[in-house]
Structures are given as C-alpha cells and as structure tokens.
C-alpha cells in the first residue's frame, strides 16, 4: 500500500506544534470562510496564506505537487464541461452584460464567463489548499482530540482515531489474502487481464477482507471494555497538550475569522441580497 498523505507522527515545525483543537478550529473557520465567499479579494489572500503555511510545514513536495496538479486538472475538466454546456454560465454570477472575448463558430467565451470560471477555480483550489495544509499539519490522534475539544461526543472521536489505528491492519490482511489467493491460482498480473476480470478478482480479495475485519469487532470491543472504555462521561487525550501562547493567539484568530464570515454573510448575502460577485469590470 502506498504512503498516506497524512502523517502519523507529529512533525517538527511551528504549525505542527499547535494543539489539535487549535488546528481543527483554524481549519473549520477557514473552510467556512472559503465556502461562503465568491470574491477574489477574500480568496486570494487566503490562498497565499495557505501557500506560506504549506512552505513552513516543509512537506514532501513531490507528493504535494502531484496532488495539486491532479486536483487542478480535475477541476479544469469540470469547468470546460460547464462552459461547453452553457457558455453563458457566468452571467448569472457576474454582471448581466456579455462581452465576447473570443468566438469559435457557435461557441464563444465571454468576459463574464471567463471571470466566473477563473474565480470558481480559485475557490476550489483555495479550499483544496486549506484542506491540504490541515492534513499535512495534523495527525489522526490530534484530529480526534481536536474534534473532542470542539464538543463532539468522544465515542464519535474514537471512531476517527480507532479507524486510523485499524488501517495498517487492513493493509496487512489485504496482502495476506492476496498472497493466499495467488497461491490458489488467482491471476493478479495487471498486464495479463482486462479491467473487468481484474475487478472481479479484486472482489475475491475484498469480501474475505470485509468479513474478517468485521469479525474482529468482538475482540477489540472486549479489549476496550476491559480497560473500562466508555465508563465515564469525559475523556482526555494523550495527543492533546495544554494550550500554549501561540495556541491562544491562533484560537483568537479563528474566532475572529468566524465572526467576520458571519458578518460578511449578514451584510452581503442576506441584506441587501447580492447574488453577483465582485468583478474588476
């Protein structure tokens, strides 16, 4: 199985050292900020901020660039589809005018549509950057601890941390089942089989994998029960530390961004209602 993008051990940089709750708070508010705005003046600063944060995390750039290109082109294909189906798609979101930039036979690209598609791409990429920064800065245990810090019931948080604990076991089981099926004569070579046959063969591995995984519920649940899991109403997390000075600052920033977002929605979208985005023209 390939390497995950999320780290399991905490990294060395400043952002890694923030507590789980702070990271989840920052992520939540910034994703909310991204989703509510369709405005280049709000999105571009965040995009640059995320880029700076990403650089400060010293990630494995090969993976990051591969992911970025993948997401970029996935969304680009989407945009081209939007444009092909309705070349006027931008008019609803920008201004009612139609200024043709270039035309190819029946198809044309108007300035409004181009602007709209550009901003949508920026918005999707900003949302992706916020997520990626968060994913690279946090570990699964911190994520669970952070969710608990925000008031989720800890049984739900356990789902997250336990699920991550279980993923290497799944990988192990998968390999074992694959090897034993190969020993019984199942062809696994990609070059020798067509797609449909390969799908069917994969199913032969997946069904035992799924069933054996669920068979283990009893054992794990007993082990947890023996350690008195679920006895008390509260829980502390080993991965979570006391908030430091930096944590307090960043939590304050997160709350400020949230307040700003609500103020923005209240003043820009609800009253007076504005459906059109800001344009330079």
């Amino acid at each position, binding site marked *: 199985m390939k390497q995950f993008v999320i780290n399991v051990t905490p990294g060395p940089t400043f952002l890694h050292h923030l507590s789980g709750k702070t990271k989840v708070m920052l992520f939540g508010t910034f994703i909310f900020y991204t989703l509510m705005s369709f405005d280049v003046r709000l999105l571009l600063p965040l995009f640059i901020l995320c880029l700076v944060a990403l650089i400060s995390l010293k990630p494995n750039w090969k993976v990051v660039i591969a992911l970025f290109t993948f997401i970029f082109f996935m969304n680009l294909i989407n945009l081209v589809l939007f444009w092909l189906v309705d070349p006027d798609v931008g008019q609803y979101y920008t201004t009612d005018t139609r200024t043709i930039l270039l035309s190819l036979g029946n198809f044309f690209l108007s300035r409004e549509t181009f602007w709209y598609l550009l901003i949508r791409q920026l918005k999707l990429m900003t949302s992706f950057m916020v997520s990626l920064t968060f994913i690279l800065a946090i570990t699964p245990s911190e994520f669970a601890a952070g969710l608990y810090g925000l008031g989720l019931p800890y049984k739900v948080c356990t*789902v997250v941390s336990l699920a991550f604990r279980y993923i290497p076991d799944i990988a192990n089981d998968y390999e074992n089942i694959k090897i034993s099926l190969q020993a019984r004569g199942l062809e696994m070579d990609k070059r020798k089989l067509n797609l449909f046959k390969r799908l069917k063969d994969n199913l032969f591995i997946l069904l035992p994998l799924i069933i054996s995984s669920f068979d283990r519920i009893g054992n794990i649940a007993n082990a947890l029960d023996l350690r008195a899991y679920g006895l008390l109403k509260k829980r502390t997390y080993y991965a979570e530390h006391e908030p430091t000075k930096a944590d307090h600052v960043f939590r304050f920033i997160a709350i400020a961004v949230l307040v700003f977002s609500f103020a923005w929605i209240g003043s820009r979208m609800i009253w007076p209602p504005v459906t059109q985005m800001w344009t330079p023209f």
Partner: protein
Amino acid sequence: MQKKNLAQLILGDWNTKTVVGVAIGAALFGVLMVYGGVKVFTNTNLTTAMLIPVIVGALFGPVPALVACFFGNVIADLIGGWGFWFDWSIGNGVLGFFVGLLPLYGADINKGVFTVKHAVIFALVAILGNALAFGVVTPLFTLLFFGGELNITFLQSLTGGASNVLVLTVLGIPLLFALAKRNASSQNLVKE
C-alpha cells in the same frame, strides 16, 4: 430481548461494540474509496466502499451507518490528501443512513433474518436513498459551496448515485444473504 422502539432502532445503541464496528467500517470505507474504485466520470467512482454501510447498517442501524460513511469519506480525504469535499461527505452520510435502515423493516442480519421481501425493500430504499443523497443533497451543497452549472452538477451526482445503486444491489444483496446465512447457522436453538 425486549422490542426496541423506533428512536432506538434509528440511533442504534452506542456501546463499545458499536463504536468499534463503526470505526472499522469507517476505516474500510476510507481505504476502499481511495484504493478500491474505478473511475466512471469526473469526480465519480464506481466504488466497492458502498458495501460498508450495508454491513454497518445491518449490524448496528442507520445512524451508525451514517457516521461510518461520513467519517469514512473524511478519512479517505485525509489519506488521499486531495482535500475535503464536504458536499460529498454529507451526501455519503445521507446515503449511509438510508442504506442502514435495514433493521427498521425487519431484516436482522445478526439473527440470520433476511428474506427476498427484505431484499426488494433494500433495493428500493437504496435507489430512493441515492436519488435523495446524490440527486438532491449533494448537488444542493455543491451549488451552495462552489456554485456551478446546474446540469453538470446533477449529472455528476447522478452518475455517482447510479454507480452506487449498481454496487449496492449487485454486490450488496448477495452479501446480505451470505451474512444472514452465516449468522443463522449459529442461531439454530429454538425457544420453547
């Protein structure tokens, strides 16, 4: 065992067993979503992950299936690293809820109760759930979050929904029959 009321059936009882089951379900859902799919359309996969809510729902009920699907999708986003697309996580959660309604219409996999009647209801609910989750909920959230061209957004969601229905009915129903048969053999004592 006394009969549970409706709220309990929907919520499931959140004991340690349920927590572990949902966690394993979420882990498998995440892994299968990343590694166990075939591309159908932009943003859409024919994924075997859809088998997970079937099992979690059958064992624990609709809300655990919802949690398993939502967090499974979040976990897939975390290990895949392609960012969070909550419109799809929410859609998957809603679908998980519908698929997990199994105990509500009398199917009880733990005791080996799963008949042709249940299979038909299951297929109908799967279609309905997909129509609602990917025909209404996900496109609405996509439009709310990102805006976009209505037709394409619906088309994407609906191909996702259609491929899910395919996996759920073609693979899910035989799986349920197999599980029920397996559990039935350990429950052959007759109460007198």
